[in-house]
């Protein structure tokens, strides 16, 4: 071994240069994605539940809900995708929690790298996985008869909308991942929070079929706005309201949770 120490790209006083920080974030994202290669099951993990949901909602509920499975699929696929996006955001919490409890963060923090690189890298990689799952479900939906009637612009807009929201929600996941004692607690928490949140929305059922007291909540539920925006963009139609509200919610979630998440990340990881 030579005596030369690798000169990490540090500036004076040991500050990490912005460009180096960006590259380190890229390396951390690579790390989160490359593991899929050795655990193909991880991909199935992201895909099996949504695929199951698509089939279940289309063929079991579809007939009664909308007359024909195809008609219901046209409505519900967007909701299924939104629900899956929220569930998948909890993978961010779980993997951060694992890094924390297994000591991986200790190793990373003892390296001369940007403190934020492990966090931003993870979020970037998880957004890529979100995109993959969304495309997979749209593809499957198309095979079962779902039609994007909003055109390419609608498709791109819907994708962007979903990713913006996912990026905001990722910060709640960061906070949960930092605060939870172990991975099992993250899972329990996600289940308890996300299930009622997604079902008391317009994701799967039209709001006007619900009792008035429930509508009062459902109409402010961010999942409703996101589902309506995503569906509206994909299928074409009036979307200004839902898109605006979804963006407001995303901004609100980000404004509240980014500082909280960063604070607990800095103190724990």
């Amino acid at each position, binding site marked *: 071994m030579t005596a030369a*120490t690798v000169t990490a790209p540090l500036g004076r006083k040991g500050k990490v240069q912005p460009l180096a920080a960006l*590259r380190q974030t890229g390396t951390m994202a690579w790390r989160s994605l490359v593991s899929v290669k050795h655990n193909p099951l991880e991909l199935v993990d992201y895909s099996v539940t949504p695929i199951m949901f698509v089939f279940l909602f289309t063929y079991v509920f579809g007939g009664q809900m909308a007359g024909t499975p195809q008609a219901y699929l046209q409505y519900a696929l967007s909701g299924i995708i939104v629900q899956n996006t929220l569930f998948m955001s909890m993978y961010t919490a779980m993997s951060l929690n694992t890094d924390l409890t297994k*000591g991986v963060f200790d*190793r990373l923090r003892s390296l001369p790298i940007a403190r934020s690189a492990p966090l931003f890298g993870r979020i970037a990689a998880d957004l890529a996985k979100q995109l993959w799952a969304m495309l997979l479900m749209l593809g499957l939906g198309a095979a079962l008869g779902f039609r994007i009637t909003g055109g390419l612009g609608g498709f791109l807009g819907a994708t962007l909308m979903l990713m913006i929201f996912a990026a905001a929600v990722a910060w709640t996941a960061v906070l949960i991942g930092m605060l939870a004692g172990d991975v099992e607690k993250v899972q329990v928490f996600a289940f308890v929070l996300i299930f009622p949140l997604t079902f008391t929305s317009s994701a799967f059922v039209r709001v006007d079929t619900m009792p008035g007291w429930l509508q009062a909540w459902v109409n402010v539920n961010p999942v409703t706005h996101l589902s309506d925006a995503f569906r509206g963009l994909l299928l074409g139609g009036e979307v200004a309201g839902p898109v605006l509200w979804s963006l407001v919610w995303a901004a609100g979630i980000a404004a509240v949770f980014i500082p909280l998440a960063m604070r607990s990340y800095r103190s724990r990881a």
Partner: protein
Amino acid sequence: MEFAIQAEGLAKSFKETHALAGVDLAARTGTVLGLLGPNGAGKTTAVRIFATLLTPDSGWARVGGHDVVREAGLVRAMIGLTGQYAAVDEKLTGTENLLMIGRLLGMGRAEARARAAELLERFHLEEAAGRAAKTYSGGMRRRLDLAASLVGRPQILFLDEPTTGLDPHSRGELWDMLRGLVAEGVTALLTTQYLNEADQLADEIVVIDKGRVIAEGTPDQLKSQVGGQVLQLRPVHPADLTKAHALVREAAGRARIEGEEITAPVNDLELLPSVVRRLDQAAIPVGELTLRRSSLDEVFLVLTGHRAEPEQPEDDAPDVGEQEKVGTPS
């Protein structure tokens, strides 16, 4: 630089617990400093401060001449850290784990790859290089973890109980690897509960208990602190034990019964003949009578007032082996 690692008055509290209550220590460049103490003595807290993972409440610490708080980035560029549990990404292969560190440290793709291959070979992991780390045995993980801490060729290494939970064979391997690194000029701070590990590897030892330094020096100096040698005798008849103990204590000033044996520190060359004379006068037949160097175990006993006890094996490490350890069961 005379001291690669240096600290003065280091203190850190967690809520009510004083993990460190004013610790001074220093490791000469190119040597191994052993930080010895039972569970909860504050060893890990000290390492985490040196590795810039924690900031001290008071006191200061310098690593490679840089302050760990004000110049944390510069410290990080010089150190390698191997934790108590192997901090590798279980989903990545051995190669990818090292590649990640190399890339994070600013190496090019080819350079990082070459460095990974070099380290995997050095730590006998070439065959497992392409397998996910979750398939590795405990010893292999530890080696990969140590390799990961060496990617950037650090001149200063922190090893926090690197062999806890390893079987004797893997432990021996890790010792050899550490010796090799020190021979290349690396300075290491090694925490351990294993007495003979500190004895084997450390040039100097600092013994801490309850967040305070209770002794320091070379292994030999520590041993001579309790009397350079220990007199050990076993009466033929266990019934004579109490009587013999009283006689030895009279002669040596201090003695204790351990099982069927009596031990006493030897500070005076006259002790041995004096003990023999007294035993002869009292007509106590002795089966065994020896003089030996005191072990660090006894040093610890004298220093802390509590016995070095073998720890309960950890759940995930049933193969702790028969090695002596300092500490109380957690």
